[in-house]
């Protein structure tokens, strides 16, 4: 039996969704292409009822699922999303909401396909109180993740496939550089697709630190914000360097490129590229390892020649950009649900960010065929 008060509930939630984005009536009306804000005002007051299709427009504009407006009861509490360099604009809040939607849908797909949901295998209760702790944690996590000597090259896949971190690479303009979240859905990281590929690897490692120390940061967050000291951010950067530039690999490779006790700018850039990090990150890591002097690095970073060499060499690295293409794991889980009839084709296309007509072509890129029944299995003892 339909509830008589659904229109009132929808109107109230429209207002709530708009306010949570920090949008004025006028700004929201522009976003929704209304000729004037009074139309929106009357919709929010419940004086003018919307159709389903109009509600879909609202849901898209506000970054909400349709069920947020239609579902019975109070809306569920939104999981905490923590940003690095959060711009605090409407674009940021929209990106944050879409990240939450992604995490929840991903977890639901895992559940529907019979996989374990929310398994962040590395734990979020690590304590880091000093730079020594940062170094120790970097080594420990690198061993647990069984990362190779060039961790940036496999970090994304290992985080997702092995550690249960849900990764979203989204074009978010100036909304912020990266964010992380934990909740019933597990752990998730959001990175900006508009950043350079070497920056994305670093952001992933940086955000991983926040996930690992999530519980500790929850306790110290307010004090940290009040004191205005971004120590945790510097710890996160240090952790990213430890993880992506392991001493055992970087040290020997650096020494191998020395000639008469010096390393050329080109070799610095090539070494950074080999490890999938920025040249600046590599140089500071070498300082930290005692292989270069701080003053020499500061001088090099201010040198236009280094910038020129770096810029020219990096052109080809953009070919390795992950783009906004969904990860293989996400596609696999969603495809399993599609085959089970547990996700509709319309929703599948929406989750993958593709037109409805492109499902077959998209799946073929991942090696899947919707027309295949995929029968057959092997019993395990």
């Amino acid at each position, binding site marked *: 039996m339909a509830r008589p008060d659904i229109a009132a509930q929808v109107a109230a939630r429209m207002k709530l969704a708009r306010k949570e984005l920090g949008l004025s009536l006028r700004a929201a009306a522009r976003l929704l292409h209304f000729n004037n804000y009074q139309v929106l005002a009357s919709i929010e007051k419940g004086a003018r009822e919307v159709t*389903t*299709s109009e*509600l879909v427009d609202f849901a898209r504009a506000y970054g909400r699922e349709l069920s947020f407006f239609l579902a019975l009861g109070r809306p569920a509490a939104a999981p905490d999303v923590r940003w690095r360099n959060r711009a605090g604009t409407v674009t940021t809040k929209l990106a944050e909401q879409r990240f939450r939607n992604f995490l929840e*849908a991903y977890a639901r797909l895992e559940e*529907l396909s019979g996989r374990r949901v929310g398994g962040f295998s590395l734990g979020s209760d690590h304590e880091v109180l000093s730079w020594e702790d940062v170094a120790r944690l970097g080594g420990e996590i690198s061993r647990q993740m069984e990362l190779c000597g060039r961790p940036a090259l496999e970090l994304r896949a290992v985080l997702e496939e092995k550690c249960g971190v849900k990764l979203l690479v989204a074009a978010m303009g100036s909304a912020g550089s990266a964010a992380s979240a934990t909740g019933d859905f597990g752990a998730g990281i959001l990175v900006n697709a508009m950043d350079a590929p070497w920056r994305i690897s670093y952001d992933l490692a940086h955000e991983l630190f926040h996930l690992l120390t999530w519980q500790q940061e929850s306790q110290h967050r307010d004090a940290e914000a009040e004191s205005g000291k971004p120590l945790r951010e510097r710890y996160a950067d240090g952790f990213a360097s430890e993880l992506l530039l392991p001493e055992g690999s970087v040290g020997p490779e650096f020494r191998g490129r020395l000639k008469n006790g010096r390393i050329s700018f080109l070799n610095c850039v090539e070494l950074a590229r080999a490890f999938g990090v920025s040249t600046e990150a590599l140089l500071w890591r070498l300082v930290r390892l005692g292989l270069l002097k701080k003053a020499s690095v500061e001088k090099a970073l201010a040198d236009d020649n280094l910038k020129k060499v770096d810029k020219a060499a990096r052109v080809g690295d953009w070919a390795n950009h992950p783009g906004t293409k969904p990860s293989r794991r996400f596609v696999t889980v969603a495809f399993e649900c599609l085959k089970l009839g*547990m996700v*509709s084709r*319309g929703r*599948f296309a929406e989750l993958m960010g593709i037109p*409805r007509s492109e499902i077959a072509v998209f799946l073929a890129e991942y090696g899947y065929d919707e027309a295949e029944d995929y029968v057959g299995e092997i019993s395990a003892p």
Partner: protein
Amino acid sequence: MARLVLLDADVVIRAFELGIWDKLTAKHEVVLARSVFSREVRDYRDPASGRRVQIDLGPDLDNGRLKVMDADLRWTAEADNVCCSRLGGLHGHGELESIAIAKHAARDALFCTADGYAIQAMVVIGLREQLISMEKLLQAAGLSRKFNTRADYQFSEAKFRKWVRLGSIRLAETEGL
């Protein structure tokens, strides 16, 4: 007399791929949910050239060969609630609005979809009799063709029946909820 048929996005797109859209709308009174019409049926891939071709349904709407319906919020809320509680999966806007229309505004219409989720949802809601596969729809319109390519499989009666069977199992599992 032509029967009213509510089409899901994939069926419309496939009809364009097969070059039978005009014949289909001539033989049946075709209805689309507003969400399907305005957001989901955008283009198709031409089988000969492999190129994506834009779909413009405006002229069909203007000349009355196509009708577009809006679902009342209450119908959609009810369909959303039933799908979530009894089927549990993730549905799209177009499928949800089509199901709501099939239940409340077009009870005499057939709903033609190749979507496994939508077919199961219709069965679980008790609307099995309103479902039809694309293969059967084309046969009924005298547009018989053999469904023997890989792309056709999704739209075949055989695949449709598999989804109906699965929907019946889910209905049996959830009865009493």
